[in-house]
């Protein structure tokens, strides 16, 4: 059970309000991702839920009861930190057993749960090592192990993958998703990486300067971003924004078109421009196109291998049904 509800929560450090009044409900068993640029308050929000920071005003409910003044240890939440925060002088076994020892469980139960967690996370062979003797991915798993043995109401992850190299990150991403499928426990995951958000989340919360810009499933955010910020933040490469007469044609201040929704042609198209950089990935090809007269750069994705090079003039056609329109305030026009 782990339904978490934030009711008009605010947080100020001195005179600076980092989180203006904010309401959010996280349903039981949901994988929720807080995503946003650095300094947008997503980690602060997570720490407010964890109880590591005090809420300035408002309330946090966990499972229907007010937990605003409950100390972190009693909230029934487990957290995985960015630095893993393993205890360096303890073996992996002792690290994982630490919360259980603090809860004064009897030794047989502790051993059983530690063995269980180690089995799930492939750590059985490393139980007697110290964190210093483990690789980054293994340390990450120990930190997760320490969280799961407590059988918490919800897991909180604070950018857990940012210290891993790219290949390992993809692997751990998959492991955390699988863990969520298996445990079906509420998870709140903070990241600045929209790819992590898109691949793992049931629900994404996009934050900017402490304000929730949009809440929704990954594809909802992709298909119908509520404003320019969400439109630019979700999706990779970034959405192209075009202002001026071309936007006015569609009755909008700004129009947005994703790179994958533009078709490339050598001979004909609505727009034309000169390729400045082409990135050939094999599966896709990305072109950064200049001199279109629309925006400084238009990014375009083409399927498979397409042979345009630097300096080639190409023609672009946007798919009319997926052009996003925004008004002068940056809000979406339906």
């Amino acid at each position: 059970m782990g339904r978490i509800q934030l009711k008009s929560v605010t947080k100020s450090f001195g005179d600076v309000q980092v989180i203006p009044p904010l309401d959010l409900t996280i349903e039981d068993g949901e994988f929720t991702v807080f995503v946003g640029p650095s300094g947008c308050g997503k980690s602060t929000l997570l720490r407010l839920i964890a109880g590591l920071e005090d809420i300035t005003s408002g309330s946090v409910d966990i499972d229907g009861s007010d937990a605003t003044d409950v100390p972190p240890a009693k909230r029934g939440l487990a957290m995985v930190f960015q630095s893993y925060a393993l205890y360096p002088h303890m073996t992996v076994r002792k690290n994982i057993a630490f919360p259980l020892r603090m809860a004064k469980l009897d030794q047989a139960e502790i051993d059983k749960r530690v063995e269980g967690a180690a089995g799930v996370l492939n750590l059985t062979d490393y139980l007697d090592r110290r964190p210093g003797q483990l690789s980054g991915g293994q340390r990450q798993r120990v930190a997760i192990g320490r969280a799961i043995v407590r059988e918490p109401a919800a897991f909180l992850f604070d950018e857990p993958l940012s210290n891993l190299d790219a290949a390992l990150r993809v692997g751990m991403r998959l492991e955390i998703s699988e863990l969520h499928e298996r445990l079906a426990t509420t998870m709140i995951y903070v990241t600045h990486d929209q790819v992590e958000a898109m691949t793992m989340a049931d629900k994404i919360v996009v934050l900017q300067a402490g304000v929730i810009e949009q809440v929704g499933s990954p594809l909802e955010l992709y298909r119908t971003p509520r404003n320019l910020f969400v439109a630019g933040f979700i999706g990779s490469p970034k959405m192209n924004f075009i202002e001026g007469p071309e936007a006015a044609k569609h009755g909008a201040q700004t129009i947005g078109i994703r790179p994958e929704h533009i078709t490339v042609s050598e001979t004909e198209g609505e727009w034309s421009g000169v390729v400045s950089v082409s990135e050939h990935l094999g599966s896709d090809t990305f072109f950064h196109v200049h001199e279109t007269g629309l925006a400084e750069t238009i990014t375009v994705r083409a399927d498979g291998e397409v042979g345009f090079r630097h300096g080639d003039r190409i023609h672009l056609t946007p798919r009319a049904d997926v052009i996003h329109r925004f008004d002068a305030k940056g809000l979406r026009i339906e």
Partner: protein
Amino acid sequence: MATQHSRSVARLMMAPAVVLLLGWMLVPLTMTLYFSFKKYLPLRGGDLGWVGFDNYVRFVSSSSFWPAVQATLMIVGGVLMITVVLGILLAMLLDQPMWGQGVVRILVIAPFFVMPTVSALVWKNMFMDPVNGLLAHLWRFFGAEPISWLSEASMTSIIMIVSWQWLPFATLILLTAIQSLDSEQLEAAEMDGAPVLKRFYHIVLPHLSRAITIVILIQTIFLLSIFAEIFVTTGGAFGTRTLTYLIFQRVLESQNVGLGSAGGVYAIILANIVAIFLMRIVGKNLDA
């Protein structure tokens, strides 16, 4: 990239320093050993020839030998205990964010810059004087009879003075260690359900173990040879005669260089015994 040439040049360049240090150590050591086997009374006939192990036997069988060893160990142990415990508490206090942190830290370190002789004099005359000392005034304020510290509680007094001098050193080293503790570890422990005291015991203390080891080892080296504090205050009376002080008395007050040298060799042995014990107890913290 150390080639054959650069390595031999390095050896050549290091040689003067090594020779100097070796000489610095070897000459006094050899002279101590040399005199310890001689009857040498500078004012009563000078060098009176070889006497074998006579000096060694006389030094140990003197009634003041074992009390001196005991006093030495008590001072070392007492000061270590006080400086480490208070040092940890003070370091944790100074680690808290507060107004005027920089100034407070400098003030805390200040006692370390005061010369031992001066600080002992200050303590003796300003604090512990039974008539005009601050402590005497304090005692009288509460209606108690002032204590004549240096004669009635001589050992406690010396331990207090020396602890005051060494507390800054312990605090400073422990403070730097505490500052390097990852705050996420403490937060993780908090989430794991460890209350304040358990966080201290399970997280902070293990993190400090290496710094504590260093404090203990370095302080022991210096505390075994404290002299000025005793010389200025009690002059070795009232049970505060340490081994170092006993040797000083034998050499300078009794003018018996041979006997004092034998005592010096015993002091080296005592220091080594203490060192072996310490390395056994705390040395493993320096590994890994």
